[in-house]
């Protein structure tokens, strides 16, 4: 508690510091925006030439920089935009709203927008990558559906958990260790259609930033990574839109001003129509099936005055399946309301109210008298208040507070039929609060060293009504303790230090190092290597200690003077305490005492990541390679020996190339290769009552065949006509160009009736050559 009070006092002091004024160092601050759309540009750099002082805009496009009073030449730059240079006489605090013009003539100048060169050198954060919507759009994808999470998988240290899946494993971590945020709202299941498509509709997305473990102090609650997805705010100047038709889905995005230059909206919708083809099927049984998903995004953005901006962002998405035996639907809902305020030029604050939910429903259709309905739901409500204090051009403080209340209803199973003998089954709800306070300081020491250090204090509380279990050494439930409503019956807390340092070895080369400590109180009960819609989240409790992650990383970064070539080499070591894994044959669905299935242990991973990126005007692309190992240990699993994580990939290589032949034609391609995933294979058999019973190897001691695949995509734009307000483009893409049969699973099967005891290995592959075509109109 003392720690808590200390931090509060620290934060309070911070707020008072800003009252001081310094006439010799006036502050220039403002928002950088796109001249055409009025959309703010996060990550744009502001450089004061001559005194080589600079900064970059935050996620809301705001910057603040204190400079010596006098006449200055200010340069404002952002990748993909013409940079702006201005002479400004700064004698007192002033606000500017620079608007940058996009380089439309060279629309193909696509690259991963890490920060620009100067920023990259100074920033003591490591292992971050930012992707913008254009890059995401340019990489070839399955069924022509642009997908930010799949583009991320082409970066070093980030891999798909299984073929075609949007689930991510970051540096050998589990998928539930990634915090995926959509406009600050936690996304609990980022997959549609069993995870083959992500819930992010690229039309609504501004950019995706990933932190591979070196988490900024404002983020926490997950130990592997932060995937921060920010949606676009909507065009402030004029109505615009995008409409697209693809082979499995259609989409429409509309944006425009509500009040010119003051308020804007953006709305986008996407729906798949796989089921439209079902009535054409000859098979009577699937004619009445339905199978689709949809996404709706709505964003409102209001500039109240110079100092106050308000955003509302909402998302609803749902998958629906049904046939004559069963029906199922599931999806996420999220909403966030944010108020950004510039208290004074040095102090920027952002208050957010956020809610997010994920639920699923299952039911058997028809008149069957054992008919059931099965529901599961998770809701969260959060409050966040974040501040940035720009003390000087060398020193920046961030601090804030957040609190999340989470309610999980793991399963409610009922029978709608009166005569049914099925007892209503309700796995008790779980309520919890997750609170955090943080403070972080970025500090530039001289010209060569920058330092970032921060501290996060997190407090997790289980709240009644709820129940706890007393388990014996064999994880058998001995006793169940019920807790009354509103009572805090268990809590965990801890300090999470974060540290980063960057040292400029030469004008081209930077050496960085970092340490991150983070805690995770929420875990996903999944036993498969791919996300399923039925997975249930569960919180820490007296039996389930929080997962604690430590990560050390270090890297060398090279950027040539023009910024066209970037190379990086990073190494990392991760150690996790209280890692979650499950016993053999766990019962994870509809299990009151789910925590008795957990066999806690530890996990470790280490790796080397190399990336080389070229960002030319005609040709751009990157090459990435990861050499890594991820292991787990639990005294109750695999006879207490270390075993490989299912997400271990020894080698993971990808190459992405984009080539603009001319202003109408763009070709892009990628090739990926990685070591087959660790699996458990049979190493013997025995006979029981004339049935074959397999005997298995140690857990994950064998491997699937190696995976590789090449995709290409060609985009053809229509000829530009000055009198036409709309532009259209055709996109042709082929997924898995050379038809590699990548094993998704290996099964052992045989026909008991024909030849008892005979077994053979059969591999299932999901996608052979998949061509697709998409037509998009922008207006």
């Amino acid at each position, binding site marked *: 508690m003392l720690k808590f009070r200390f931090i509060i006092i620290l934060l309070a002091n911070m707020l008072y510091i800003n009252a001081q004024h310094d006439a010799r160092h006036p502050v220039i601050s403002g928002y950088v925006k796109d001249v055409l759309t009025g959309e703010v540009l996060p990550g744009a750099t502001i450089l004061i030439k001559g005194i080589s002082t600079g900064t970059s805009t935050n996620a809301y496009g705001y910057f603040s920089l204190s400079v010596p009073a006098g006449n200055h030449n200010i340069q404002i730059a952002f990748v993909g935009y013409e940079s702006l240079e201005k002479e400004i006489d700064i004698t007192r605090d002033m606000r500017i709203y620079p608007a940058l013009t996009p380089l439309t003539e060279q629309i193909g100048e696509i690259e991963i927008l890490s920060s620009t060169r100067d920023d990259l050198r100074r920033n003591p954060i490591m292992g971050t990558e930012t992707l913008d919507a254009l890059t995401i759009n340019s990489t070839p994808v399955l069924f022509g559906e642009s997908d930010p999470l799949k583009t991320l998988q082409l970066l070093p240290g980030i891999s798909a958990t299984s073929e075609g899946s949007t689930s991510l494993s970051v540096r050998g971590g589990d998928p539930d260790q990634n915090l995926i945020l959509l406009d600050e709202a936690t996304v609990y299941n980022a997959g549609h259609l069993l995870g083959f498509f992500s819930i992010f509709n690229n039309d609504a997305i501004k950019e995706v930033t990933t932190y591979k473990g070196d988490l900024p102090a404002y983020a926490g609650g997950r130990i592997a990574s932060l995937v921060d997805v920010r949606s676009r705010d909507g065009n402030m100047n004029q109505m615009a839109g995008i409409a697209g038709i693809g082979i499995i889905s259609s989409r429409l995005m509309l944006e425009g001003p509500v009040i010119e230059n003051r308020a804007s909206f953006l709305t986008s919708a996407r729906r798949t129509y796989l089921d439209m083809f079902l009535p054409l099927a000859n098979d009577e049984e699937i004619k009445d099936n339905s199978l689709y998903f949809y996404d709706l995004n709505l964003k409102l953005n209001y500039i109240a005055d110079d100092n106050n901006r308000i955003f509302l962002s909402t998302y609803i998405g749902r998958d629906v399946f049904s046939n004559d035996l069963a029906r199922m639907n599931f999806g996420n809902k999220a909403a966030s309301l944010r108020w950004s305020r510039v208290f004074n030029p040095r102090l920027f604050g952002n208050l957010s109210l956020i809610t997010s939910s994920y639920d699923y429903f299952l039911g058997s259709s028809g008149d069957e008298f054992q008919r059931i309905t099965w529901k599961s739901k998770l809701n969260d409500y959060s409050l966040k208040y974040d501040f940035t204090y720009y003390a000087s051009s060398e020193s920046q403080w961030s601090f804030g507070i957040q609190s999340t209340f989470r309610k999980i209803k793991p399963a409610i199973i009922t029978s709608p039929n009166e005569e049914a003998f099925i007892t209503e089954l309700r796995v008790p709800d779980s309520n919890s609060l997750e609170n955090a306070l943080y403070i972080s300081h970025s500090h530039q020491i001289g010209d060569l060293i920058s330092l970032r250090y921060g501290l996060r204090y997190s407090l997790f509380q289980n709240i009644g009504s709820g129940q706890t279990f007393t388990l014996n050494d064999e994880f058998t439930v001995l006793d169940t303790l019920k807790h009354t409503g509103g009572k805090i019956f268990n809590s965990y807390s801890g300090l999470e230090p974060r540290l980063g340092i960057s040292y400029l070895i030469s004008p081209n080369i930077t050496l960085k190092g970092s340490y991150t400590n983070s805690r995770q109180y929420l875990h996903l009960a999944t036993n498969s290597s791919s996300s399923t819609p039925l997975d249930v989240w569960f919180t820490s409790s007296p039996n389930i200690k929080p997962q604690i992650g430590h990560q050390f990383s270090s890297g060398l970064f090279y950027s040539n003077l023009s910024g066209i070539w970037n190379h990086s080499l990073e190494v990392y070591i991760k150690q996790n305490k209280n890692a979650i894994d499950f016993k053999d044959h766990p019962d994870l669905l509809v299990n009151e005492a789910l925590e008795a299935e957990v066999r806690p242990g530890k996990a470790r991973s280490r790796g080397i990541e190399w990336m080389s990126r070229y960002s030319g005007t005609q040709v751009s692309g990157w090459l990435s390679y990861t050499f890594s190992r991820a292991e787990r240990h639990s005294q109750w699993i695999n006879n207490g020996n270390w075993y490989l994580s299912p997400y271990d990939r020894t080698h993971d290589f990808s190459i992405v190339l984009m080539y603009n032949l001319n202003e109408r034609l763009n070709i892009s391609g990628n090739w990926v290769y990685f070591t087959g995933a660790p699996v458990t294979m049979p190493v013997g058999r025995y006979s029981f009552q004339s049935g074959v019973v397999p*005997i298995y190897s140690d857990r994950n001691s064998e491997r699937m065949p190696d995976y590789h695949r090449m995709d290409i995509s060609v985009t053809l734009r229509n000829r530009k006509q000055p009198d036409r307000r709309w532009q259209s483009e055709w996109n042709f893409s082929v997924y898995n160009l050379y038809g590699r049969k990548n094993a998704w699973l290996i099964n052992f099967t045989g026909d008991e009736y024909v030849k008892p005891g005979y077994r053979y290995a059969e591999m299932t592959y999901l996608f052979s050559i998949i061509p697709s075509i998409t037509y998009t109109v922008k207006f």
Partner: protein
Amino acid sequence: MQHSKIIIISLLISLLWGCTEVIDLELKTAPERLVVDAIITNEDELQIVFLSKSMAYFNENEPDPVTGAQVSIGYEDKMIELRESVEHSGYYFTEPYNLNPRPGITYTLHITTNSENGHHPEYYTASSTMPNNVSLDSIQMQLRENLDVWQVLAWFQDSPNQKNYYMFRLKKNDYLFTSRPKDWTVTNNTFFRGKYVNGLWVQSISADPARNIMNEGDKIILAMNSITEEFYNFIVALQRENTISSPLFGGPPANTPGNISNGAFGIFTTMMVDTMGLYYDPILHD
């Protein structure tokens, strides 16, 4: 419940565009171990224990029997020695009716293998307590056309205040129709604890016309077995390891959990059996 889960999971799997291909795979082979296959029931005259050896996964031959072992079953203060069969090596059996299985009694199996081929004799043991008997009230059979099966339904009173485990098997005209463990239905009473079970779908018979399984007058016998939790877990795992796995619902496969000491595979279990029959009549049942 088991059925609902299977339906839902197969619905999801059917959505995938998967294609399959037979592949050549070299598998390692674990060292040979003893396998025990022993089920004690109130129904059998002779209780049989079958001992064999584990083998390579792709070896499709009958397992090698383990001969010359000393096998006995103890309960209360008695010890029954089993004799090895002359015609069927690896099979050990009791004298008719000398075990007299009753609910609540704990039976312990003792096995000592012989020392031939330079092996040391090894001792293995396992125990099982006979579950309480639950009797069938009635059974029924009905055609479900959309699933192409006859459902066999059971009515019975579940005993209250305890976890019960059931296994259902079918005989057709005295021939064990569900001969292999993968065809057995097992369930616990989570969904009907202490209730009167009102027509639970417990077994299925294919109604595929091509297979022409049911003819008028055929006798169907349903055996409801009250089983131990240990055996329930064993069969659930065994069935899981014999059905299609997938990254979506699989999870890592694992060995079927038995109860034999000293690292042997298989299980020694007890079960109470109650049976009831009906004669198939197309007018009534289709």
